[in-house]
């Protein structure tokens, strides 16, 4: 996707999304008390102003993108973030899934065990092949952090199955 097309799509998404938010989201999700004498004091005032501002900025960005596109014709240069060659194994989706699985496992396995697993999976996923070193770090780091947080910082951490 060229930068101008990306700006157009991004701008239109923000513009349309926040226009809808002003008309549908705010009335549904922001509770308004019955008698507010000064309009600017209402709980909906600030979110509405910000959403309108966001919608305007979105359309402005889209307009800028379309203008640049029409001035220079179809750009061929890809935008910087997309220019990196796609990786086979390490994808953002996999990393995000590991994060979410880590989050869900904390309640089940506790903070330490889920951290050990998450660290093993992530480091392997990033290409670490030195198993003894990986196993040592994956065990030592969560255990040290656990000891620090529980005994020094007095923060109770989730124990999951071990509660």
């Amino acid at each position, binding site marked *: 996707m060229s930068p101008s097309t990306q700006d157009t799509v991004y701008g239109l998404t923000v513009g349309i999304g926040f226009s809808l938010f002003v008309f549908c989201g705010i009335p549904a999700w922001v509770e308004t008390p019955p008698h507010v004498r000064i309009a600017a004091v209402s709980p909906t005032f*600030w979110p509405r102003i910000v959403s309108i501002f966001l919608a305007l900025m*979105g359309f402005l*960005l889209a307009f800028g993108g379309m203008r640049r596109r029409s001035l220079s014709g179809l750009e061929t240069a890809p935008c910087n973030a997309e220019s990196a060659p796609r990786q086979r194994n390490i994808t953002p989706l996999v*990393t*995000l899934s590991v994060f979410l699985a880590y989050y869900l496992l904390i309640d089940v396995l506790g903070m330490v065990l889920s951290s050990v697993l998450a*660290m093993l999976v992530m480091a392997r996923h*990033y290409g670490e092949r030195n198993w003894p070193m990986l196993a040592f770090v994956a065990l030592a780091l969560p255990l040290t952090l656990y000891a620090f947080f529980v005994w020094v910082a007095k923060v109770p*951490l989730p124990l999951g199955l071990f509660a």
Partner: protein
Amino acid sequence: MIENLAAALSLVATWYNLAAIAGGMLFGVVIGAIPGLTGNMAVALALPFTFYMNPITGLLLLVGLYKGAIYGGSISAILIKTPGTPAASCTVLDGHPLTQKGQARKALDMALAASCTADLISNLTLIFCTGWIAAFALRFGPPEFFTLICFSMTMIAGVSGNSPIKGFISAGLGLLTATVGLDLMFSTERMTFGNPDLMAGINFIPVLIGLFALPEMIRGLTGDQAAQVAPVDAGRLTWTEFRGSLKTILRGGVIGTLLGAIPAIGPAPAAFLSYSEARRTSKNGDNFGKGELEGIAAAESGNSGCCGSTMIPLLSLGVPGDPITAIMLGAFMIHGLTPGPLIFKQNAPLVYALFIGILCSSFMLYFAGRGIVRVFSKVVNIPKRMLYPAVMVLCVFGVYAVNNSMLDVLVMIVSGAVGYVMLLTDTPPAPFIIAFILGPMFEDNLRRSLIISNGGYEVFIASPISWLFIALTVASIAFTVLRSVRKSQAARCGA
């Protein structure tokens, strides 16, 4: 006066007082460097230990912890792009790019030097100008706060990078995210979706860590990057480099000192304001955000400048300006001391002893920091394939510890995903953070001012302080527009 000073010296000049400051600082730096653990937590943890100490020893321990934690936040911001404390969020902007260029040690040295210098300015102000600054801070009502925050908001343009519109979108998202929770005035729900955990609003720290630390992890590593360690360190900060940033440090120290004395502002906005002013006036302004030592100097001097001056309203008026000074107020009261104008008469030797200890702490911060920097700077030698998972685990532990809440961990992951989208779309995350910090203060003071004036907007031009900030806001916007026009003209001429 001389008698009081002599009594103060005999109170403070003991090995255990010096040990309390040094120990507090070392522990504070470590706490501050761990993402999620803040100075508030460090001071709150140490408070029970002060019950068994002399008043001056206990207070100096807390001061050491506070200063150490504020500085410590910059270490993780520079080395692993994860601000240890909210105050260090601005340090990331230039700190991490410098690490990637192989200048981590230089960046850490600059952060330390700027912190110590600004801290010294703040401490001297605390000692010599408490009365004046307290009187100035007392004149701030909601309209003055509102105009001050309007001026602070202009710094968004300064950190928006090449696309101001994307910067404004980022800021708008930050403002909107900050409205989640119970409405402060009417106690009605705003975008909580019936979740009681969201009623208190979205915590700042998970958002901060998610936006800065996670996006690069989510993007992943290619084969070459995975084994990569930061390039060989380019050496330590030189005197010439420090002198080149001295003006910025002094300005940042003054900004931090003034904002620190105003209750409820805090070090993070001070750091951003100092950064924005430095970027606006520096001849290297265009390099800010790409790894500029002056950027670190500005951010660190801004946040450390608050350290001493937050004590001004506490000591002179008995009003704590932030959570840390509220805890310190508790420490004073436990020892039977009541901060306020009378403390200078009733306990003059103790106040002087505290001042001497606080002054010493600026120098001790330098030595404690130098020792710790040497240890922490080894982090750059860890390959990314091992560093990233370790940072992820560290972030999860730290973020959970903020409120003992799993919701915060989820907020961090969602913020990481949002940050990744921002990375893809070239949207800067710094405006989001600034707006997220300032948004609630902006809205709250706007509404309180309008209630005071019964809906009339003339309240915002009723005092000279408001006028000053309105003038500064207009000047800042005009300067930014002028600068961008000149830049585009220069680009057109170049083409």
